[in-house]
């Protein structure tokens, strides 16, 4: 019964999305339809409630493990811990699509409830565009991947959840990314709405900005968490693989970062109108392209999941309609949007434009590298594109971007002289040079990590300069946000460079009681024993690891076997110190009874993820700052209106 109710709610929500779309477009095209326009906001709100109900019912079905529902039977298991039963709801194709459309529906409802800045026509066009996007996903769910489908006869037991996904980090990683993608779909709807009504104003940018900021924060957290998960769960010792699935979340992040900055310029300076619109379209396009690449199985990936060409075709058609339509609209309309305020090259805007171009170039490089195997496969050549391409080619654009990131925030809006901030530029250059010389002489490091360390240190200091000569308590939250986010980038960069420059690796075959060393660590294999968990068995090594002769820490890396479905996973074991992490993996037993143990000493590697979290924190502060100042403006506007009404009443 619950499954049927969930399906019914989904159909109703889809019908409301259709209504929202049809009435919205009518109201934009034809002033006379404006009495119908009153339906749009309520439709968006009710649609959000219905789809959320539908999702809640699917969660319920997973919680009680209703094995008469096909999705539950094929992705869950009655013996799973409850938290993984719940996360199993979105740990599969249908469920994750329903989550996507649920978040979209709730976002639409929220816009309809709170957004008052946009002109009514642009608002209607935006909600109509949102209706189109949602409707595409509803069609996808209802016609090709119904999450509520029943089995003819209930299954005796479920098939389980991919053991790689049975991890608390991964239970919450996809929804975080999805919130990001969906936030960008809202930005996309805003961009399309503004193109339809040709009203690209600072108000439009201010309305769009919190959505972009929120989406960007979620993407940042999602990518950071995903990277850490891949690092400790996959057991290969790395933190970024340039895998298509990873790139699928990095590309929208790059576009969203550019969009964020360009929307800020539009909001505060009324410049970069077409550029902001373009980025709004591109950012969501990257989310969709990423989803398509991951779901269609068109690219081979270490994470390959939910592979199904038929679904791939469906997403491709949606892509064609949404993105093709938006880009067509852009080509036809962008001419009629005037460029807005002009600014000198040496100005805050100039620096932001420069970095936007760099970000776009990096995005193009990642996109090209991700699609390149697809291109060559068309000519029957199988290649894989990895770090040897992405790292150096990306660095060409990352390095100038870091330099401008360091000094750009010190420039004034509209027009400035570079020599005014000569001292700050000199400080940054001196720091970078000093680090280059110091590390270049002291350690034998490759060029890229060396540059990363130097620019990271320079940026770390320079990013704090905007706080100078300010009363810290009275500095706007948005400024704090910018400073912390830029500082976070520097921290992450230092972590990446240091991991790459100083990591020590050791592959040893050790008998019980023997020891191996890696960097400053001495590791003794105390024993290997079988252990059992709720739904797996494993062999577990007991390693005593001591840093420089200190009291040893005990590590227990495992090689796990799950039985539903049968699969093997590697559980690495970590010791974190202030100056880095020891990473241990247990492997096979050699014929002579010794065990293969892989050990890595990674100095300062946690900085990568601390940096990511700082970037996200910066985004949260900026978002809070914007929301608070919006609230203040709104109150002010109300007070002014009241006063005017009073005055008129007296007159």
């Amino acid at each position, binding site marked *: 019964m619950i499954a049927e109710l969930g399906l019914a709610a989904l159909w109703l929500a889809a019908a409301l999305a259709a209504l929202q779309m049809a009435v919205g477009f009518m109201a934009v095209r034809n002033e006379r339809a404006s009495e119908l326009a009153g339906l749009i906001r309520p439709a968006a709100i009710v649609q959000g409630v219905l789809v959320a109900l539908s999702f809640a019912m699917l969660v319920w079905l997973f919680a009680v493990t209703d094995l008469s529902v096909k999705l539950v039977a094929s992705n869950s298991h009655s013996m799973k811990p409850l938290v993984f039963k719940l996360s199993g709801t979105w740990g599969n194709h249908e469920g994750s699509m329903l989550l996507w459309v649920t978040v979209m529906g709730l976002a639409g409802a929220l816009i309809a409830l709170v957004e008052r800045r946009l002109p009514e026509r642009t608002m209607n066009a935006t909600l109509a565009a949102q209706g189109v996007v949602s409707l595409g996903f509803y069609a996808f769910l209802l016609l090709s991947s119904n999450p509520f489908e029943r089995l003819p006869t209930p299954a005796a037991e479920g098939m389980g959840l991919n053991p790689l996904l049975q991890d608390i980090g991964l239970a919450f990683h996809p929804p975080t990314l999805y919130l990001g993608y969906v936030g960008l779909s809202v930005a996309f709807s805003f961009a399309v709405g503004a193109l339809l009504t040709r009203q690209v104003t600072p108000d439009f940018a201010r309305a769009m900005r919190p959505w972009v900021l929120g989406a960007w924060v979620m993407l940042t957290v999602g990518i950071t968490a995903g990277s850490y998960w891949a690092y400790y769960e996959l057991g290969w010792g790395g933190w970024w693989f340039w895998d298509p699935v990873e790139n699928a979340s990095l590309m929208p992040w790059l576009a969203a970062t550019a969009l964020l900055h360009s929307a800020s310029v539009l909001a505060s300076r009324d410049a970069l109108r077409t550029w902001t619109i373009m980025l709004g379209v591109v950012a969501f396009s990257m989310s969709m392209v990423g989803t*398509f690449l991951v779901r269609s199985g068109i690219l081979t990936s270490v994470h390959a999941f939910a592979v199904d060409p038929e679904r791939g075709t469906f997403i491709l058609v949606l892509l064609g309609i949404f993105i093709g339509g938006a880009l*067509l609209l852009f080509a036809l309309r962008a001419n009629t949007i005037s460029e807005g305020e002009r600014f000198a090259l040496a100005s805050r805007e100039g620096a932001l434009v420069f970095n936007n171009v760099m970000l776009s170039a990096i995005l193009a490089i990642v996109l090209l590298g991700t699609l390149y195997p697809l291109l060559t496969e068309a000519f029957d050549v199988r290649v894989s594109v990895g770090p040897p391409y992405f790292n150096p080619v990306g660095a060409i654009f990352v390095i100038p971007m870091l330099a401008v990131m360091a000094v750009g925030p010190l420039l004034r809006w509209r027009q400035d002289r570079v020599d005014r901030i000569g001292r700050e530029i000199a400080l940054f250059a001196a720091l970078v040079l000093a680090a280059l010389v110091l590390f270049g002489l002291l350690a034998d490091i490759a060029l890229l990590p060396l540059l990363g360390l130097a620019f990271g240190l320079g940026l770390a200091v320079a990013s704090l300069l905007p706080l100078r000569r300010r009363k810290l308590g009275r500095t706007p939250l948005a400024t704090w946000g910018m400073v912390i986010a830029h500082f976070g980038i520097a921290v992450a960069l230092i972590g990446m460079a240091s991991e790459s420059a100083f990591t020590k690796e050791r592959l040893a075959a050790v008998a019980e009681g023997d020891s191996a060393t890696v960097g400053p660590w001495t590791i003794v294999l105390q024993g290997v024993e079988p252990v059992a968990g709720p739904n797996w068995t494993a062999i577990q090594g007991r390693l005593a690891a001591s840093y420089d002769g200190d009291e040893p820490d005990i590590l227990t890396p495992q090689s796990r076997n799950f039985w539903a479905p049968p699969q093997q996973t590697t559980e690495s074991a970590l010791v974190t110190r202030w100056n880095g992490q020891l990473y241990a993996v247990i492997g096979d037993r050699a014929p002579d009874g010794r065990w293969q143990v892989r050990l890595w000493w990674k100095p300062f590697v946690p900085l990568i993820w601390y940096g990511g979290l700082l970037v996200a924190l910066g985004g949260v502060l900026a978002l809070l700052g914007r929301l608070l100042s919006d609230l203040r403006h709104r109150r002010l506007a109300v007070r002014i209106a009241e006063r005017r009404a009073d005055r008129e009443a007296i007159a």
Partner: protein
Amino acid sequence: MSWRLWVPLFVFALFLGLAAYQLTQPKDEFVASGMVGEELPYFNLPPAMEGGEGVTNATFADGQPRLLNIWASWCLPCIAEAPHLESLERQGVEIVGVAIRDRPEDIARFLAQHGNPYSRIGRDDLSEVQLAIGSSGVPETFVIDGEGVIRYQHIGDVRASDVPVLLAELEQAR
């Protein structure tokens, strides 16, 4: 100026065309073991049940091709493949079993219930052999030639349609 506005759409159309073309191409989803074509590594497994014979890599190097079946009594697809293994056995194929993380009494119960197509079964309590030959799950079936070289890997349960394939691979390995 205005032609530049069409560039994004043009680039996107190229992507769309490429993706559409790739979607129509057949895909090879097979994740093969890196050990195919290699000699079996050294191993020595104790018998799975009292009175049976154990399995070592030397078992396979007597000039006769065999199947090596990785299974377990706790594995549901192994029940589904049991009749097809029996039909292979009836056609004169020797099947050596490796039971993964299993208990003798469970193995005996499974064989009593679903038939015993194996000439011998070794017990792999730590998944050593499974890891060593590049098997990623249960069940899996390998064709081993007379020199003990892995010639073919079948992932998942053996279905009726796989029986002739395995027979042909065994013939080729002769």
